[in-house]
């Protein structure tokens, strides 16, 4: 490999340094260089959301960013949600609501949900559906995902935070 740069990022509170060519995608840097394989690659063109991580507080597609752009950034991934092996409340809710089957999209779905619940003020059913449409899942039909995220928003913000039109959904973009 020629022309690599030294990149330092903080991943889930841990300061890590690795080498990357300028063209290396952030997700490949995380997975192949730093060996943090919890974040997955689904499409490499920014549609599916599987590679979503939180960068400096906001959700972002790590397949649409170069590693060099993330130099110095604080990154949170699925591996950082649990504390001392104890699952995060959102992770527990995912299991309770059968919000995952194959689990491949789950890293991006969880980080999208964290961003939605903690960075947004609107947690109505419609807002949750639209917010979660940033992360595709092929197995579950989203039923358990929506239930788990709604319940998590309720835990974080209380009942008033998730009130809204209960008959949401029913739209399709054909």
């Amino acid at each position, binding site marked *: 490999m020629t022309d690599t740069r030294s990149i330092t990022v903080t991943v889930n509170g841990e300061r890590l340094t690795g080498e990357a060519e300028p063209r290396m995608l952030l997700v490949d840097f995380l997975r192949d260089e730093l060996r943090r394989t919890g974040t997955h690659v689904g499409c490499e063109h920014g549609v*599916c959301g599987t590679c979503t991580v939180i960068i400096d507080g906001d959700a972002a597609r790590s397949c649409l960013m170069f590693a060099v752009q993330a130099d110095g950034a604080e990154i949170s991934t699925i591996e950082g949600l649990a504390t001392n092996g104890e699952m995060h409340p959102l992770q527990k809710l995912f299991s309770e609501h059968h919000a995952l089957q194959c689990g491949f999209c789950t890293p991006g779905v969880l980080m999208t949900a964290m961003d939605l619940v903690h960075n947004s003020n609107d947690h109505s059913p419609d807002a949750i*559906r639209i917010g979660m449409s*940033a992360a595709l899942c092929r197995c579950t*039909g989203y*039923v358990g995902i929506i239930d788990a995220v709604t319940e998590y928003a309720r835990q974080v913000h209380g009942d008033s935070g998730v009130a809204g039109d209960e008959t949401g959904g*029913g*739209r399709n973009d054909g």
Partner: protein
Amino acid sequence: MAILASLATRQAGDVTMDDGVRRESGGYIGQSVPRREDKNLLLGQGNFVADIQLPGMVHAAFARSPLPHAKIGIVDVTAARAMDGVCFAASGDDVMAALPPINGMQVVTPQGWRDRVDTDILIPDQPLIPNDKLRYVGEAFALVVADSRYIAEDALELIEPDLEPLQPLPDAESALVDGAPLVHEHLGRNVAAFLHAKKGAGAEGLEVAPHRLKRRFVHHRYAAMPMECRGVVADYDTRTDTLTIWSSTQVVHWVRREVATALGMPEERVRCIAPDVGGGFGGKGHVYPEDILVAWLAREIGRPVKWVEDRHEHILNAAHSRDNIYDVEIGFDDDGKILALTSSFLVDSGAYTPVGAGIAGNSIAHMLGPYHIENYETDCKVVLTNRTPNAPYRGAGRPEVGFAMERSVDLVANYLGLDPAEVRFRNMIPPEDMPYEVGLTYRDGVAMVYDSGDYPKALRRALAELGGLETIRQRQKDALAEGRYLGLGLGCYVEGTGVGPFEGATVKIDPTGKIMVATGACPQGQGHETIFAQFAADMWQVPIDDVFVTVADTGHVSQGYGTIASRSTVTASGAIKLATDAVHEKVFAIAANLLETAETDLELRDAGVGVKGVPDMHVSYRDIATAAKPGWGHQRPDGVVAGLESTSYYEPPTVTWSYAANATLVEVDPETGQIAIEKYVEVHDAGVLVNPKLADGQVKGGLVQGLGGALLEELAYDDHGQLLTGSLMDYLLPSASDVPPLAVIHQETPSPLNAFGVKGLGEGGAIAPPVVIANAVCDALRPFKAELNSTPVRWADVAAFFDQNA
């Protein structure tokens, strides 16, 4: 038993269950036991093929055809091979010189089926990398292996193939034109299979029908599209001459067989593991060239080799599905009773047909659905074209034929001015006729008999869930008076599940007394490790945590079949039971010896064997395992051989028949054509549900895939055979905001064909939505006598009806 009793409380959660027929086992079967798979996946500790990194590993990439049909001239890989960081490159010539093609018949159909269904089958073998012609956009013509995927892709840029474009065959009809070029010259025709089947008087039955309708139905091309693309890692060990392959596959034993065949190795020296697999839905249900090529490269180069498909590559190269054209004629009387049905259909198989005529065989067997129809005749051509190969995807021939059939039923109703629900009730097989002999042969070679179920009840409940037929029709009338268009869509199907030929399982008691179970099933998110543990815990009367389940590893069970065709719950549970029965025999014999009592006085309890009615007389499985050991000091009675282990193969007598009734209420917008789904209901019966929550998840996931196929997803080709939808920007998967309120109601009619009363349910959800949506939209547009006889159902087509009638 205290542990079991405390767990026996039903944990069905919010799953809507049937209210009468459940068999209370008092054990784990029937409970929504939490998934043991979840924890690792949620913590980010899953292990998918792409996560595997081995010392010295190198990365493969494939050069893929930009043309649908082209003669291959010189493919010079010298420059690529010379590039820094590249360790290997090969053209089709290099590969063809080293490796045979994949046998076209990965699935062997039994003689019984070929005897009873007229067939004329010529399935082409698939070269691993061809050196004569390229037959679809995306077919590989060269490969490169390098230190990183980035470098491998750089090197591909240096391969300039000499390709001479040939006339493309962009679809099935063009391939059947007289004088059309051939996709595979040596076959002498573009038809991989002709099939024909007949029931009763067949087409002659139409002659006496008072009314006849004839229509063409088109079911478009879409695909499984799992979130994880395919991937393979292989590692060759020189010292032991063994290959280990990790493949994102649904069929590890097929991969082992094909790799061993191609590389000339004993199967025992090839181990295939499917680690965590990120969805399959049929698209990973057969062996692909890359499975074999990556294994070969690892042996050839002497380093571990990894190949992970990117999404563009997946859309071009992983199997597509559906893509059928049906010409149907239906004969019926004044009451809407269907007297005869004929269908002549084409399957666009693409350039190869890796699962042979399996999809078409399914379509032939499933057309009559839940209805009693005396006369039926069908013929099919599986047509080779210059599209990506077509292989089963969730439903596998049933959504396509279901679309033709259930649209036809609605057309009969409209013709006679009857309600589509009423026409269905008049033709349905009543529960008292179960088991019902269909009069056709299934593709396992056995005469089709629907084993159990209550089809009319399912439809009644589906309608009730939407408020009841009268209320729906009244709402529709009221809405129309306000200029709003509501439509009711119905769709019913039956589904042969748990198909053979077999599944394997190994069951053993570990020296620690724990129960070890391995099966040939290969899950991709279904929760097999959990449900097979439920089965085994009940069979052994142990806490579920005492059961350890291994799946998808040829190293743990010598013969297996895999997870396709809604089969694993039925077939693997059968294999686990047979193996368990065999070990039970020895366990009882040894326990009788240890407890100095007769076997007939013994029962399984508390993780061991006890004397009935005598609480203190008990030996644990650990003690029994110690007693069963070979060598000095064993405590086996005479004639009992050492060890507590058995491998068994369950060969199901034939398929179990799941079924469902679907109903939806939609509103269409006269301005935009938008189709808003108020609610979608499926009443589903898959026999006894082992884990209701997981079963519910399977059905709902399937429904949303079906809705995607109905409304969003399309693999579109232009007239020259170019794929137009090569990214997820163009190929629209349903997202969370596309999903309507879903109601799934589980009816449970046990199957009489197996010990647990189970039927399969992986595919069912995806079968009906395309026709249910089409029927609903046509119902909404009934004032205009609109007919939508093709998929996907597009807003633009809906809006066009309003424009034409404005």
